Every structure is written in C-alpha cells, then in structure tokens.
C-alpha cells in the first residue's frame, strides 16, 4: 500500500530529474560545444547531420566510405534540414545536410559565429505528391495543389475525386522539404506570395509519418522525397506546372531532364572550404562511385565527369 505513494513520488522526482537534464543539455547547446575543435590531421571523425530526405543517402555514403578510407569514421544523424543547419551555425557538426538552400538570416547567424558556410550540391531529388491507392485522382496542377494545401479547396470532388474532406499531411517546419513545398507549391514559386499551409495541416515528425498516414487514410494527401515513396503502397500523382503544361509523373529521367516541375537540389554545407578529410570525402561523393549510391536509393544522381 505504501509503495503506491512512494511510486508516485518517485515518478514526480523522475520528471524533475528529466527536466534538469534537459535544461543542462540545452545550456550545453547554447554555449556551443565544439566537436570540430580538434581540427587538422587529428580529426578523423566527421559529424554529419540534417535533412531526413538525405539521411539515407548520407548513411549509405558513410558506410561505403569505410571501405574507401577505414581510418575515417562518419557519424550521420537526421532531424531535418533546419536542425542540421542550426547545428552548423552552433559549430557542433562538420557537414550539415539540407534539402533547401540556407536562408540569408541563417548565413548571417553563421557568420556572426565566425563560421562561413560553403554550399555543395550533392544529389537531385524529385518531390512526389502522394495519395491513398484508393483515391481516384491521379493528376493535379500546381495551382490545384496550392489551393488544396491552403484549404481554398477542401473537398476531393472539386478536383475530380470522391465527395470527401481532404486531409492535408506535411512535414514539420524544421524540414527542408516543408520549406521547398511551401515556396514552390503553396506559393507557386512567386516571391511576393505569402500564402501558408492551412492550420489544419497535420505536421508529421518524419517522412515515414507521412507515408503511413497516406497509406491508411483514403482522403489524405502528402508529399515525400521520391526515394521514400513505394508505389506499391501509395499512389504518386502526375503534376503539371500550369494549366497549359502536360502532367508529368516523377521518375529519375523526368527529374534529370527537368521536365518534372518539383525537382530540387540536395545540399551539403561545410564550415569554410572543406579541408583534408572532409574534402576527400566530398570528392568521393562527387565521383561516379558516390553518385551510383544516389541512383541505387531512388534519388537522381549528378552528372559525373568520368
């Protein structure tokens, strides 16, 4: 009997301990613990963090690179482009992965921390718009998508589907994919457009969150990098740039040609021009060997010179 009360006291204590640890970690972050401070020859470990779109490619690269140069160890984590860029600004990673270019204010933040971010395009991704397999809609224009994601259109019957409410599914705002979709689809690429996602949009913490909600909800619509889409479980829509353009389905070929309207560059950012180990690693990524891995994972490789 007494153990009951004891347990509950322990539980509140755990919460307090947890909060303290969390706050300590936060202060640790804010004081900018530098992992790359060792520098030079001694630094054989590369910290690589950021975009969840790139994380699978980055992991495959890191694994494969062990065979190329076993003395270098590469730690890869996801978390979103914003997370990776924030870590680069705070000086806690060597390479930040991003599925969107850095914003001007982020570059300014980095410079105020004495970090000069350098951009490297490492692969190309086509962004697929996905719906449930039971959804009769198979193609949409960018204008229609913009209307759907800002809730100007809320029923599938307005775009040729069933009479059912549209459920919007998106990544969290720390995702580069979210920002890309906001700029290129919701705002149709117009600079002065200030439309944003409708407030009822479900924000998923991961790419898999989006695919699994789309797979089980017949009225959901979402988007994901082409490498994450499995056509056996969700339907990929053909997209038209405007009302005159043809509807194009995303494939490696259409993304490479640039005919698919939602293809974009994927980036790695380094703090300053890459030096020794990091430079070698990036050179290898740009080689035909590195780019073969991009193709294998369903993304679009860069043109290699060899």
């Amino acid at each position, binding site marked *: *009997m*007494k*153990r*009951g*009360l004891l*347990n*509950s006291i322990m*539980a*509140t204590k755990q*919460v*307090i301990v947890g*909060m*303290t640890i969390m*706050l300590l970690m*936060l*202060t640790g*972050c*804010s004081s*900018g613990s530098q992992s790359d401070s060792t520098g030079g020859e001694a630094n054989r470990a590369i910290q690589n963090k950021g975009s969840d779109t790139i994380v699978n490619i980055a992991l495959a690269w890191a694994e494969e690179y062990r065979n190329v140069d076993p003395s270098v160890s590469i730690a890869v984590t996801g*978390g*979103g482009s*914003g*997370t990776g860029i*924030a870590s680069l*600004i*705070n000086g806690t990673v060597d390479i930040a992965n991003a599925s969107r270019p850095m914003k001007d204010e*982020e570059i300014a*933040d980095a410079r105020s921390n004495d970090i000069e971010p350098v951009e490297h395009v490492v692969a190309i991704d086509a962004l697929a718009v996905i719906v449930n397999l039971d959804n009769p809609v198979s193609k949409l224009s960018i204008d229609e998508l913009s209307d759907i994601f800002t809730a100007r259109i809320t029923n599938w019957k307005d775009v040729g589907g069933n009479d059912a*409410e549209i*459920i919007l599914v998106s990544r*969290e*705002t*720390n995702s580069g994919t*979210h*920002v890309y979709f*906001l700029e290129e689809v919701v705002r149709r690429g117009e600079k002065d457009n*200030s439309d*944003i*996602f409708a*407030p*009822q*949009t*479900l*924000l*998923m*913490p991961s790419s898999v969150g989006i695919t699994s*909600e789309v797979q*089980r*909800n017949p*009225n*959901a619509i979402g988007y994901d990098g082409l490498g994450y889409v499995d056509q056996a479980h969700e339907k990929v829509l053909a997209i038209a740039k405007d009302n005159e353009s043809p509807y194009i389905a995303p494939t490696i070929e259409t993304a490479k040609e640039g005919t698919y309207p939602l293809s974009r560059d994927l980036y790695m950012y380094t703090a300053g021009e890459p030096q020794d180990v990091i430079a070698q690693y990036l050179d290898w990524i740009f080689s035909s060997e590195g780019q073969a891995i991009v193709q294998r994972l369903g993304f679009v490789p860069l043109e290699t010179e060899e």
Partner: protein
Amino acid sequence: MSREMRLERQGEQLDPQGHQEGDPVGDPVGDSAGGQIRLELLVEGLIRLAGISVIVIIALIFFFLLKEGLPAFRQVSLAQFLGTRWYPIEDQYGILSLLVGSLMVTVGAIIIAVPLGLVTAVYLGEIAPNWQREILKPFIEVLAGIPSIVLGFFGWIVLAPAITRLGAPTGLTAFTGSLILAYMSLPTIISVTEDALYAVPREYRDGSLAIGATRWQTIWRVTVPAARSGIVIAVMLGIGRAIGETMAVMLVTGNAANIPELGPAAFFEPVRTMTATIAAEMGEVASGSLHYSVLFAIGIILFIITFLINTIASRLVGGNGTRRRGGQL
C-alpha cells in the same frame, strides 16, 4: 505530509534517548556520545543541504527559463503571442492554438481517467477480496512502468486507425491523445487514491456500518469524502503527468496548430500541444534567435500552469486535510 511529521517526531525522540543511554554509564562512553552527536549534526546538515538544493535547483531552472524566454517579448508583442496562428518559419508566434491543444488533450484525459481511476481504486481498496488485489496491484504498477513512447507508438498503430473507423476524418486527433494520456495517468491516480482510502481509519467505516448504513453508503458518503484530500492530490498528480507528456502526444495528435470549432466533434480534430511544439522545433532553432526565445517562453507558460495546479492542490488539501489526518494519529 503526515509521514514527514511522523518522521520528524521519531527523530526528536531518538535524540534524547541517545543521551539517556550514554550519560548514566559515565565517562568512557562520553567520547562516543560526543561522536554520535557530531555524526547526527553532520547527517542533519546533509539532509538540510539536500532539502535546500531542491529549492535552489528549481529557482535556477526558473531563472534560466526567464533569461532565455523573456527576450522574446522584446520582438513579439503580447497580443501577437496570444494570437491564433503558429507558423514560426514566417515569424508567426501565436500560441493560443497550442494552449487550446494542450488544454483539450489534458481535460479530455482527466475526464476519462479520473472516474475510471477513482472507481478502480475504490474497488481495489474497499471491495476486492485480498487474492484479487494481489493480482491486480502488480499489473497497475507495471502499467506505470510502460515507457510513454511505447504507448504513443501503440496509439499511432492501433488507436488512430480505430478512431478513423469510428468516422473521424483522421485518426490523429485530440481524443486519441486524451486516451493515451488517460491510460498513462491512471496508475498514478489509482495508487495515490488507494493510499488515501487506506489511510481512512477503520473506525469510520465501522461506525458508519454500525448506525445502519449500507456498504455502498459507507463507501460514497464516509470513506471517499474522508479521503478527499488524498484524492485531490491523486487527480493533480494525474493532471501534472498529462500536461507535461510530450512524445506520445506528438505521435498521435497530428500536430496541426489548429483551433477546433466548438461542438461535439471538436475532440475529433487534430491539435498541437505546447510540449510537442517545443520538442519538434527545439532542434531546428539557432540558440539566441527569436524562435528559440519563443520556445522558452512557451516553457515559462507550461511552468506557470504546473505551478498553479500544484498551488491549487495544496490549497485544496490545506488545513482541513491535515487536521483530519492529525486526528487519526
């Protein structure tokens, strides 16, 4: 509370006893008695230090929150901060939708968990035969040990599709979050309530039964009211558990910064809680940026809410409860 008082009293009694045993024997043991006193002083000091450190740590946490969170109000006016639209990448920092989300999920959880927990505790404490209690108690304790993320995963895989089948447009709703949180706060509510019922003196029940009240009347008119203060603590601890929970809620509420329209369907719409917002966005912010400060400002709001809940709880329990407990000693 009464336990602490009892401990103190025991401590006081121990001290004079030590002297009484030491003194009559005389000098040879005098040294060791002095040593004992010194040891006691040391232990007393350590205990005091432990007590004070708790206060210091909480004060430090609060100052840290204020230091990091208050700068937000230099750039975001209070009216903006209490606005409805939360979209940080466009500098829209209205936390009203997050506040509503947290409150809906918590209130829903309490509406589900309190009656269920109370009835379970009454059954366990007052009605169930011993052998049933022996079986049920360990299960309830195991329930408390399930990591919240596992419950969240369960909600995502099992509950969400089930709720879609009930006719909701999506299974990721405030109600799904409430169900998970209710399940999580049940063990706390049950154990603490049962404790409170156990502390009600046997004489109360005997007296009630003796004047001809039925068992039902005894439970609801005598035992439960007598344990009122403990039950309030149970409910407050349950609320505390629910409002602070993050990961499970993040998985099942859909995280849409959306204020549901008033009506019976409101609980079947997605919401975004304050805790999930901090967890989801903490990683993306550059330290010192406006977004960073606003997340800490949300932390301040959460801190104030839990502080208020605790204050209300101790007020409700206050004098009345301790006097009753004092009588029982």
